[in-house]
């Protein structure tokens, strides 16, 4: 089993499942700077993938390509059987299947918590308002802050805001969730409440791609860890393998610096 082949580095049980995200040789330039260099990896259904790497290694760029917040210039991305092309219908379809949680929460400050969550179901899924609001309250229950429903984002703590952001993404009933450093902007005591919600999601069978620096979370929840540097996948493997028996020198260096 080659560890630099990201797709192969999964357990046999996972390998039997269908691919839900296929990335095949994605390249991405910002001007002259190449942020992604032929990134290839397939994500299985209900798999939890944690992407690690030093800052500037292209991990955020990669997952932002998957729902077209960034546009890749060559290579193919296929999400749940739909290829990401310039066809706006495909982009819309993929975005409604893929939820995303940002480092800076990006809640809509002029809308109440319930309105934040029910916005997309009402305007994209065309649900009746009452039903969308009921669903929003259920989701708030699920992320553990039902009592904050009528408040505005500015009135919540960072951890609460991030949980609302997760609920907002879940409101579209996505099959895949992308997390772009969800705990990096949080105070230490709030990190746990967000990670708990994410663990809950993983246990519930959500396909997740998580960019994070939380090694504890990676070790405990991830099915696979992908390590990136300078826009390339350097090594991939199960958490066990990755933390105890890294193959590449760059991985060893990274681990020695953060552990």
């Amino acid at each position, binding site marked *: 089993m080659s560890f630099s082949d990201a797709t192969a580095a999964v357990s046999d049980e996972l390998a039997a499942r269908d691919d839900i995200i296929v990335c095949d040789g994605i390249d991405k330039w910002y001007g002259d700077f190449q942020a992604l260099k032929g990134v290839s990896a397939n994500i299985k259904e209900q798999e939890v993938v944690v992407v690690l790497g030093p800052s500037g290694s292209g991990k955020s760029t990669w997952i932002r390509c998957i729902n077209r*917040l960034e546009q890749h210039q060559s290579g193919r991305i296929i999400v749940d059987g739909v290829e990401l092309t310039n066809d706006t219908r495909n982009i819309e379809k993929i975005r409604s299947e893929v939820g995303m949680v940002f480092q800076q929460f990006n809640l809509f400050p*002029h809308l109440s918590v319930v309105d934040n969550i029910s916005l997309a179901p009402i305007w994209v899924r065309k649900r009746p308002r009452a039903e969308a609001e009921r669903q929003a309250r259920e989701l708030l229950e699920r992320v553990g802050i039902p009592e904050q429903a009528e408040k505005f984002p500015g009135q919540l703590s960072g951890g609460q805001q991030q949980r609302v952001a997760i609920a907002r993404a879940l409101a579209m009933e996505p099959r895949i969730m992308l997390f772009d450093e969800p705990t990096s902007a949080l105070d230490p005591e709030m990190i746990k409440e967000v990670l708990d919600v994410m663990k809950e999601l993983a246990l519930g069978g959500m396909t997740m791609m998580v960019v994070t620096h939380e090694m504890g979370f990676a070790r405990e929840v991830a099915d696979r860890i992908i390590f990136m540097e300078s826009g390339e996948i350097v090594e991939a493997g199960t958490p066990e393998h990755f933390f105890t028996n890294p193959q590449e020198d760059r991985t060893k260096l990274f681990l020695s610096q953060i552990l």
Partner: protein
Amino acid sequence: MTDTQTSLHRAATEKPPFYRDATVVKWLVQITTLAVTLFAIAFLVREAGDSLQAKSIQTGFGFLEVDPAISLGEGIDTDPATGGRALWVGMVNTIRMAAAGIFLATILGTLIGIGRLSSNWLVAKLASGFIEYMRNIPLLVHIILFFVTIAVVFPDFGENVDPITGEVSQGPWNGVFHVSNKGFSVPRVHIDNGFYQWLIIVAIGSVLGRWVSKRRQALQDRTGQETYPVLSALGVIAVFAAVGWFIHPIFGFVGDAIFAPIRDLIDGTPQGPVQILLSVAAGVVAALWIRRFLAARRTPGGAAKLTDDDWFRVIFAGIAATIACVVILVLWPGLSSWLINSSRDFFDVLANKFGDGRGSVGDDPPFSVSMPDIEKRGNFANMGPSGLNLTQGFAAVFFGVVLYTAAFIAEIVRGGILAVPKGQTEAAEAIGLRRSTMLRRVILPQAFRVSLPPLGNQYLNLTKNTSLAIAVGYTDVVQVGQTIFNQTGRSLEVFIIWMLFYLACSLTISVVVNFFNVRLKIVER
């Protein structure tokens, strides 16, 4: 205790000389400022009075009651009986221009502002070209340019005279739609005698329509089936309006039964009690204000500790209330009788409008239509209550101020949109919102909050800029005022009226903008 400590102790307890005492200094400054201001006003008024007397210029507002012997180009009354009425026509024209202008300039400015940010190259370049063209040329030039363009491009008024009958015709649809260098004219729908009775029926329909829409909405929320709540409400209102067209005389009793008694009641009110009531109200308002002021400064520890500034305000409130009482009771008893008379007149008008004697459906419909009427050659035909006119002067000023202000509003809107963090767009994209929904529900609401204060400034500018109407002879308040003081010589009085009028307009706009500013403020902890 050492020497240093004793001297420090002494320095702390020693009272400073009065000119270094912060409290005393503050009060001295307040009182001096007040005295200087009052003195300056008194001086200016006396000087003005003296020099006016020396030049034997007469003063007084008598001209407001006198026939100005002028006729106005357009407005609610083109042949005003008094100077006051003439100025009122001018004010209505200004307000008409400003209100319509603010409405259109906001829509246009928002669209152009969005357009300038468009990823479509042509749209973006067109928008920025428009903005640069409009805002780099003075408004007066734009207005005159529009005025001249209309005169040159459209055919002469009264060009087509029937050689036999001598009748003036102006195309393209004679009697209905006219286009000429004097402007455009189309038929006008206006309120007729039966309108107010009909309005009662429509009001009942609206209440019922609202109830229906709520019920339909509830049904939709429960079952998820489309029930068209807004459409059904509009349908109910339309049915009431249609039926009301034929049965509105049944509400003819409202004027006599409701408004006439109120009018008589007010008419019978003696002046004395009203004076006392008003002065008591002034006292109560001051007392309530002081109480709220003190309550706002109450600390959890108990009573408020007031600064000198606070004391000054409290005392000032008291003085203001006293002055108000003196004015109401002694100096200007006319104020009370004016209040009584004007509210009586108000209800008299209501009693009249809602009254019966407008019984028959055929004679007094809610609305009627008047056609453009071309009578006099060489003059714009549609003066007075005939067609709905867009005169050359109105069009020039209107398009001038609207397009000019729209350019500035576009820049404000663009700034507002750019001020919304990029993360908001990304979050909206990530949850699958389409561009139009994102713009309407996420970006513009936030951009609007940033834009509101500078937008208010543009509204003030637009309103004040309508005074440039004088350049093309549109009868706004400045143009009418100037005509009047040329005829009567009462320039100072007209200036005072102008200033008070524009002040009132500006304050109204500020109040409205501030109201929204406070209401839309994003809630922070």
